[in-house]
């Protein structure tokens, strides 16, 4: 994934007029089918990364699709980022945002489960916000409070979000004291475990929740990650992420730890891998 484009200030500004979708490749069969219709590599298969700008119904490609923004906006990095920003502004100007959407907040961008959310948070070097409530009513209230902060100027794009019905879903997280509430979590290097930075109980005031978010950001120490040492350490520690569907990228090696019989090493004692 081309991180330089997606952390560019101009592109972040332009992104506010888009619905930004970043899917986790090979984690959903339906999403993989959709992505395969948008871009397939030379192998004819879905590859690790896909990039495109789509119409609001998700059917029409508005730029050339590829593996990264660089495929649609080639050339020297800075100029390519400016080209992408300009194109995004031009595309956004073609669509009139619905009136009712202008006066309400977008929905909370939650990931489908804690396992994936923790990993994505580690990949992004961002803290994870987990809202935990047993009843639908309590969850609805909690989500509304979290959502107001998620889209606020101070916090937009600075957290990953997930919700859970029970604190037991946070079993890989150290420091969970409350059964319900909002937990801000620092993921570990490999996004398989985490520790609580701040936590507030159900019924927290919006002001206290905001303070909890701000305190968590101040406490969180993002890591500087380099692919080679990260992977080398991961191999030593026997980290083994299992995707939900098979990886079809021809550049990806066969899944580590699978014997010819298809057994995984992740079942071994001390392994950090495995399904949730």
């Amino acid at each position, binding site marked *: 994934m081309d991180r330089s484009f997606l952390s560019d200030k101009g592109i972040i500004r332009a992104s506010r007029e*888009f619905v930004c979708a970043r899917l986790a490749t090979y984690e959903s069969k339906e999403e993989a089918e959709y992505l395969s219709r948008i871009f397939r590599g030379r192998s004819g298969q879905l590859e690790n990364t896909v990039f495109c700008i789509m119409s609001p119904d998700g059917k029409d490609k508005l730029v050339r699709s590829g593996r990264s923004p660089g495929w649609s906006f080639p050339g020297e990095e800075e100029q390519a980022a400016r080209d992408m920003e300009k194109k995004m502004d031009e595309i956004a100007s073609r*669509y009139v945002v*619905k009136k009712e959407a202008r006066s309400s907040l977008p929905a909370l961008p939650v990931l489908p489960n804690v396992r994936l959310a923790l990993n994505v948070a580690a990949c992004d070097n961002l803290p994870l916000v987990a809202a935990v409530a047993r009843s639908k009513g309590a969850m609805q209230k909690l989500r509304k409070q979290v959502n107001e902060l998620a889209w606020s100027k101070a916090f937009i794009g*600075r957290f990953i979000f997930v919700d859970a019905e029970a604190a037991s879903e946070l079993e890989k997280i150290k420091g969970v004291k409350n059964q319900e509430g909002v937990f801000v979590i620092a993921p570990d290097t490999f996004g398989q475990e985490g520790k609580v930075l701040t936590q507030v109980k159900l019924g927290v005031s919006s002001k206290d929740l905001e303070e909890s978010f701000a305190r968590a950001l101040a406490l969180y120490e993002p890591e500087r990650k380099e692919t080679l040492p990260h992977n080398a350490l991961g191999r030593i520690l026997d*980290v083994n992420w299992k995707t939900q569907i098979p990886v079809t990228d021809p550049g990806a090696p066969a899944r*580590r730890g699978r014997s010819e019989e298809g057994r995984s090493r992740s079942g071994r004692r001390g392994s950090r891998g495995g399904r949730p």
Partner: protein
Amino acid sequence: MRRFFLILSVGFFLGLSVNSFAQEKGKVAGEQAVARQAGIAWYGTLTSALAEAKRTGKPILLVSAAPHCHSISGIW
């Protein structure tokens, strides 16, 4: 005896500087985290992104990436 005090004072100053370095490192990291720019707010599922695009009429900036590298999680 002189040697003992010499070692003690070197140890004391080393301890002080390591401690202040660690404090400074923690402070800097915390400040960096707070000072980090707002980022793109990503929807993590296709269903939620399509629903939001339908609700707003906004086009979709679509990216997909595997949250692992050679089966090692924690890195895109």
